[in-house]
């Protein structure tokens, strides 16, 4: 019929009424590397899970070699030669490297017993193509993130996959490691493997792919030959609107240094991290996943204890031993995972808002519900929360509105510094915009804001100053007017052997 090895038509997938994929298309030729691009939340990851059979689509057709197929589990797709390397390495941390590689295709004797010695030998052979530093008998958790990723690649290689899906494979690799990975991708393509490469990096796409497909807001936008589409057109396809519309940045009056971090180190996470944040400033802390940004924030907030280094607040050295200490000093954290760390889903919205400051509403040993409620109403108005009833639990709210509740909770405390860890992760474009408005408003009213973000446009669009981390160290610092996507990316992936040039600017 045609020369497509894999073809998906009009795929629709909803989760509890939320549309994750709305009629998307995809066509993959044999032996081609096809990049799949789009913003976070565009539906790429869900799409991959449909191809691999983790999720079943609500409607739509999937054709493999021109024949209609439907997968009920990943076993079905694996049997037909489809392998996926997921974005967050999905390994079995307590099991050995060998067992991780052979998961689902173990070598067994006729009686069904595992042939451990043979598996170890074969695992060693496969892994030696990628790295000679990985001991196949060690548990997965003892490896670094990059090494774990290599094991995942080895796993896919060992399966003789015809279609290989890689979900942001270069996200936590150094530039040099990326080059090695590109070579592996080339080699696989020359061997006739068809590859779907999900990536945020244009570099990956230009280096490896011949075609690119873009998704946006769960929809299919288009497919192009890589050499026939301009950068600008591609960005427009991905973002769908002008950049300054998306980021309503207003610069506040920037005052004195409020928070100062000096030579902060924590073994295994980050080393010698120093930066300053000023009153009214939005400071972006960016870098690749695993660069140590979240850990630095958790240390400032007292969740983790540093091995050395110090934190100053208004020029005074502070010793923060716990989140309660941090709150008492006026530092608040909006955690990356609001579902787990930010909200209590069993409690009504207003009680969530006052959860951290219950003492303020206690009269004669008893909680004054009216006072608590009134303060919550006042705060929810301030952040323009769209909720029918703040006495209902937050579970019915959209992601963006849930995030606003966490904001309200923070504002209820008497804070000076707000650390926002990926504040717009997993929320839709419209809600993002109102989160940015809130950030502007808070900065203007004198808060110091530290925003951890992986999204380059968000960093460039919202920050006053940008601190880039790479492999646990600060690898660059920019004033937003000097910063470009290229300069930040360079700092993100720069090899650490090169001397780090710190730019001190007021």
């Amino acid at each position: 019929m045609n020369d497509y090895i894999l073809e998906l038509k009009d795929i629709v997938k909803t989760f509890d009424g939320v549309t994750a994929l709305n009629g998307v298309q995809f066509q993959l030729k044999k032996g081609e590397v096809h990049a799949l691009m789009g913003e976070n939340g565009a539906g790429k990851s869900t799409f991959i899970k449909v191809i691999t059979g983790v999720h079943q689509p609500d409607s739509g057709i999937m054709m493999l070699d021109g024949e209609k197929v439907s997968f009920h589990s990943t076993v079905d797709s694996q049997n037909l030669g489809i392998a996926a390397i997921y974005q967050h390495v999905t390994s079995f941390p307590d099991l050995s490297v060998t067992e991780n590689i052979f998961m689902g295709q173990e070598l067994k004797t006729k009686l069904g017993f595992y042939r451990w010695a043979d598996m170890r030998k074969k695992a060693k052979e496969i892994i030696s193509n990628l790295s000679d530093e990985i001991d196949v008998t060690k548990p997965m958790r003892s490896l670094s993130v990059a090494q774990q990723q290599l094991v995942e690649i080895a796993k896919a290689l060992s399966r003789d996959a015809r279609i290989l899906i890689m979900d942001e494979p270069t996200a936590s690799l150094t530039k040099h490691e990326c080059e090695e990975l590109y070579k592996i991708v080339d080699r696989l393509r020359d061997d006739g493997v068809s590859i779907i490469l999900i990536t945020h990096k244009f570099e990956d796409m230009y280096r490896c792919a011949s075609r690119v497909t873009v998704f946006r807001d769960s929809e299919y936008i288009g497919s192009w030959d890589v050499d026939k589409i301009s950068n600008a057109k591609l960005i427009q396809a991905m973002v769908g609107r002008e950049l300054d519309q998306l980021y309503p940045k207003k610069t506040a009056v920037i005052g004195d240094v409020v928070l100062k971090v000096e030579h902060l180190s924590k073994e295994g996470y980050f080393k010698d991290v120093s930066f300053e944040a000023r009153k009214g400033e939005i400071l972006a802390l960016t870098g690749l996943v695993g660069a140590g940004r979240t850990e630095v924030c958790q240390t400032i907030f007292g969740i983790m204890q540093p091995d050395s280094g110090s934190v100053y607040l208004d020029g005074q050295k502070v010793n923060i031993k716990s989140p309660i200490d941090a709150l008492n000093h006026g530092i608040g954290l909006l955690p990356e995972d609001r579902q787990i760390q930010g909200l209590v889903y069993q409690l009504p919205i207003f009680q969530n808002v006052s959860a951290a400051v219950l003492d303020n509403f206690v009269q004669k040993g008893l909680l004054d519900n009216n006072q608590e409620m009134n303060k919550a109403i006042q705060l929810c108005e301030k952040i323009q929360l769209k909720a029918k009833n703040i006495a209902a639990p937050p579970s019915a709210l959209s992601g963006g509105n849930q995030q606003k509740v966490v904001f309200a909770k923070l504002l209820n405390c008497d804070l000076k510094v707000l650390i926002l860890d990926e504040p717009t992760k997993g929320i839709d474009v419209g809600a993002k915009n109102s989160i940015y408005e809130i950030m502007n408003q808070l900065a203007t009213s004198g808060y110091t804001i530290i925003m951890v973000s992986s999204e380059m446009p968000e960093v460039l669009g919202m920050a006053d100053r940008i601190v880039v981390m790479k492999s646990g160290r600060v690898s660059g610092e920019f004033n937003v007017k000097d910063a470009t996507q290229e300069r930040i990316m360079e700092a993100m992936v720069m090899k650490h052997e090169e001397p780090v040039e710190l730019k001190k600017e007021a």
Partner: protein
Amino acid sequence: MAAFPKTRTSAQKQESIFERILNYKQFGLIVALILLGLLAKFITPAMYQPASLVAMLRNNSIYAILAIGEMVVILTGGIDISIASTLSLSGVISTTLMTQNPSVPAIVWVIVSLAIGALCGLFNGFLIGKLKMTPMIATLATMYIYRGLAFLISGGVWLFPNKFTEDFTVMSQGSILGIYNITWITIILFLVAGVFLSYTQPGRRIYAVGTNVESAHVSGIKIGNVTVMSYVLCGALSGLAGVLYTANYSICYYGIADGFEMQAIAICVLGGVSLIGGTGRIDGVVIGAVLMSVISYFIGLLPGLSVWQDAIQGAIIIVAVAINIFTERMTIKRILKERGAMI
């Protein structure tokens, strides 16, 4: 392609025998066992009479069998506190049937007890694996249900030794090479469990589900089925423990083995089985079971201390878990240090 980060230069180095002994996960437990053994040598030499040791192993075999089943469930990240009730239900049914049909060979009652236990486990597994109930809640409920059924079926009646056939009691009380059959059965079960957990796909799937459910899901492992299987195995072992118990003591009553589930959990914890799931080895449980029996036996022989037995066992569990946490932290620290070399 040797250019990937060299973060574990020591990875390929062969460990010396000394290092391997030190790194052996159960090293601490074995040292504790030896120290306790030496202490006993001086304070209660009576423990070292062969008859004493053999009796000690016999009296603790039931705990060990229950601990094997409990371990399987804990490895998946679950827990089963209905095992002692399962034991009682299976013991009551098969022993009552035995007294009514004394001519039927004992192997039939073994099969019946395994089947009853497996059914109890299947129900637990259904609640937890399919209806997604919390393991603690589900098995708390079935703990009462199974014990209640045992009461109903037995009518609260005690069965005394005169009702037991010799064919039945020999299962536990007979001996080969001076060791009681019940102990031999326990040893065989440990070996089978060891092979099952290390060398078979269903056994390895139990670890896979316990260490990372999300990964198991995307790897196409049917998590619900693995969960159900683990509870069925645990139930079947508890059921088997039921006939072995009544055969061992020639007595049967619905209230037997009250509280044994905690003893089984304690053995697992002592043997280094993490309650989070995913980690724990059969050799640890073997040593845990032996250590637990030695402790209780040793304390039992001390004239003034025997009233303290429960409290001392509790204290020992705390110490053992504290040591486990400590070594775990040391391991994590070491891993971070090795990663730190990369920064």
